[in-house]
């Protein structure tokens, strides 16, 4: 965490750098039921440049509930550092009062009761109101979208991303970078990008065959705003062909490519950039490491790992801003750029309380148009839940436990696996589960639910491999997802160990017996990155399961034992 005092000790250029963060503590106001849009948007315009950052919206057009993680472990240098601080520790770190709106927005505790009190979050028509308000203060503010925008809902799947393209175009972004967009397949991505009215950036998007920068995705774009020459450099998700099916976009190669990033920073500086902004989908820890290796970046707008931080993190002379996910937050960053240097900034992470912020009717209309052809499908009630369904967290969430149970029962498997993705809204106890809700946590272009045989040894290899993608001490070797979710099996994980020795005590829950390395088990799962995977779509499997149950009840379990923290 950065305190103002810390900033004052940071000498930048000729003057001390003055940083300020405007994340409000509205506890008293809320207690009086007086939390207003004006409170949320209050911001004393500062300096000469404004950046607006949205990221990882995952096609959530409408207000939702979204529970932040309870467990988000950092290893190595990241241990105990944000964003690896949760719950009461997080509130203490930032001085957030218990029961306050900030508590609800940023931490997981008492989620259900606070959700009932404060209501849903997000909705792109509310996001539009916030953007319009910032533009009223600063008409030439830059709106930058960190990607994972054209993925994650029923309508996004059915329209191959067109619903999100139409709504985002109404918000008028200036630039964007990418991750899940590529799972639409390269033909569709190319088709959309060729028609985008804003810049599609990625210094690390390369042609796979020739290992040269891809022509369709320029590395950077210059903007002159407030008399300042600003260069925005894009950084797409580095590990797309590994974390997602590379066969869907074989023409493209990615990687971190921080040596190329340094070249791009040097290039834009030599062309007269007074301010360098990186619009990144690296993930927070990767961005922190990159900020320490690449010199000359003023601001990194960080996405991918879905962290929401009320203050930027300072690395050298670079500020790293994390703006949450699923349309729940918008970050505003005002900069004072003089003589080619960032002299200071003012920042605010604005939570989108859907009941407090008035929707922008222009965007509401666009959203309604996208949903209208599918409304009957979206709103069909499949069942109910009498317990909280959520996903975020390193090891398991109740939504994933439900999906894993559906796989075991519907596919007659011993063990089930569900990918450790970080998107997907929450459902409160007592809520209906609609088809839209199921798609919000399962929608993807490779959702086939496979069933296969695996030996105990192979299951262990998979677990170790995925764990290393999360708990490798070097962030450059992490992929930014959470641990694969397992149904029907318990295990122990020591996050401090190297790959190959983290996972132990794998137990088949239905018999209580240890998993035998040489024995074969029936395993059901979904979201395989292998081409040609066959099976029913996961949303159909889950829908069938919930329909049979009528009302579901899923309590958090203790089947994963975590040590080495």
């Amino acid at each position, binding site marked *: 965490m950065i305190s103002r005092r810390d900033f004052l000790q940071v000498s930048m250029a000729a003057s001390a750098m003055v940083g300020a963060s405007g994340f409000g503590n509205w506890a008293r106001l809320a207690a009086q039921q007086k939390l207003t849009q004006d409170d949320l948007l209050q911001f004393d315009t500062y300096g000469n440049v404004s950046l607006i950052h949205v990221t990882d919206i995952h096609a959530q057009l409408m207000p939702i509930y979204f529970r932040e993680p309870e467990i988000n472990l950092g290893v190595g240098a990241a241990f105990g550092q944000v964003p690896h601080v949760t719950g009461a520790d997080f509130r203490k770190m930032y001085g957030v009062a218990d029961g306050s709106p900030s508590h609800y927005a940023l931490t997981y505790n008492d989620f259900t009761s606070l959700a009932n009190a404060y209501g849903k979050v997000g909705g792109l028509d509310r996001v539009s109101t916030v953007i319009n308000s910032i533009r009223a203060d600063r008409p030439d503010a830059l709106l930058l979208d960190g990607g994972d925008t054209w993925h994650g809902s029923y309508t996004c799947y059915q329209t191959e991303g067109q619903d999100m393209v139409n709504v985002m175009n109404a918000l008028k972004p200036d630039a964007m970078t990418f991750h899940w967009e590529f799972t639409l397949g390269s033909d569709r991505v190319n088709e959309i990008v060729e028609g985008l009215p804003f810049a599609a950036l990625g210094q690390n998007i390369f042609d796979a065959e020739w290992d040269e920068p891809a022509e369709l995705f320029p590395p950077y774009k210059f903007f002159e705003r407030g008399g300042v020459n600003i260069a925005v450099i894009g950084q797409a998700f580095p590990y797309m062909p590994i974390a997602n099916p590379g066969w869907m976009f074989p023409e493209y190669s990615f990687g971190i490519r921080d040596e190329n990033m340094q070249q791009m920073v040097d290039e834009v500086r030599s062309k007269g950039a007074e301010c360098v902004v990186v619009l990144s989908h690296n993930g927070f820890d990767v961005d922190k490491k990159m900020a320490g290796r690449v010199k000359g970046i003023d601001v990194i707008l960080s996405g991918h790992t879905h962290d929401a931080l009320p203050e930027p993190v300072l690395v050298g002379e670079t500020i790293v801003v994390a703006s949450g996910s699923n349309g729940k937050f918008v970050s505003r960053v005002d900069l004072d750029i003089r003589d080619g240097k960032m002299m200071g900034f003012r920042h605010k992470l604005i939570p989108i309380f859907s009941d407090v912020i008035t929707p922008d009717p222009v965007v509401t209309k666009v959203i309604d148009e996208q949903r209208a052809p599918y409304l009957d499908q979206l709103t069909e009630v499949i069942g109910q839940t009498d317990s909280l369904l959520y996903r975020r967290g390193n090891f398991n969430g109740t939504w994933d436990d439900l999906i894993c149970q559906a796989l075991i029962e519907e596919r007659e498997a011993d063990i089930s696996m569900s990918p450790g993705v970080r998107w997907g809204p929450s459902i409160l106890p007592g809520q209906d589960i609609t088809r839209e809700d199921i798609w919000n946590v399962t929608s993807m272009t490779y959702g086939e639910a496979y069933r296969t045989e695996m030996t105990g040894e192979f299951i262990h290899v998979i677990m170790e*491999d995925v764990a290393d993608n999360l708990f490798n001490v070097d962030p450059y070797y992490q992929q930014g997802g959470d641990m694969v979710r397992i149904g029907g099996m318990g295990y122990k994980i020591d996050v401090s160990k*190297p790959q190959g020795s983290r996972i132990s005590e794998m137990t088949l829950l239905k018999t209580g017996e240890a998993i035998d390395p040489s024995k074969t088990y029936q395993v059901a799962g979904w979201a395989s990155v292998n081409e040609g995977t*066959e099976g029913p779509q996961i949303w159909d499997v889950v829908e069938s399961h919930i329909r049979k149950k009528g009302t579901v009840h899923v309590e958090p379990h203790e089947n994963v034992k975590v040590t080495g923290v």
Partner: protein
Amino acid sequence: MDFTRRETLALGVGAAALTVLPFRVHAAADEAIAAFTGGADVAEGGVDLTAPEIAENGNTVPVSVDAEGAVSILVLATGNPTPGVATFNFGELAGSQMASTRIRLAGTQDVVAIAKMADGSFAKASSTVKVTIGGCGG
């Protein structure tokens, strides 16, 4: 529907490549280094080795080496059954001393480049390349 037999086999092959977890430096790699340097001291730095942190495809991993003033650069995949990848020799008229190629890696391991300089000294760079099953990107 179940996996077809062919698909299951494909999955199995992917697994087989990964069951041998982070590779120990092969004795053959040490021998190759000794043969190249004649046992001379090798300094860290002076060679730029560019390789991905995580391979997009372990069967074809792009690597490049660049060492100003080198007469020869040895590239080794230390965890492969046969660690030798290439030795690039540069004549006196070479405009630059850099080369790039694609290599196959049997699993997560260190790729090493050793440059022999014109004055007979040696310089080294090393980079860990991870080969992974993948999946589960957030």
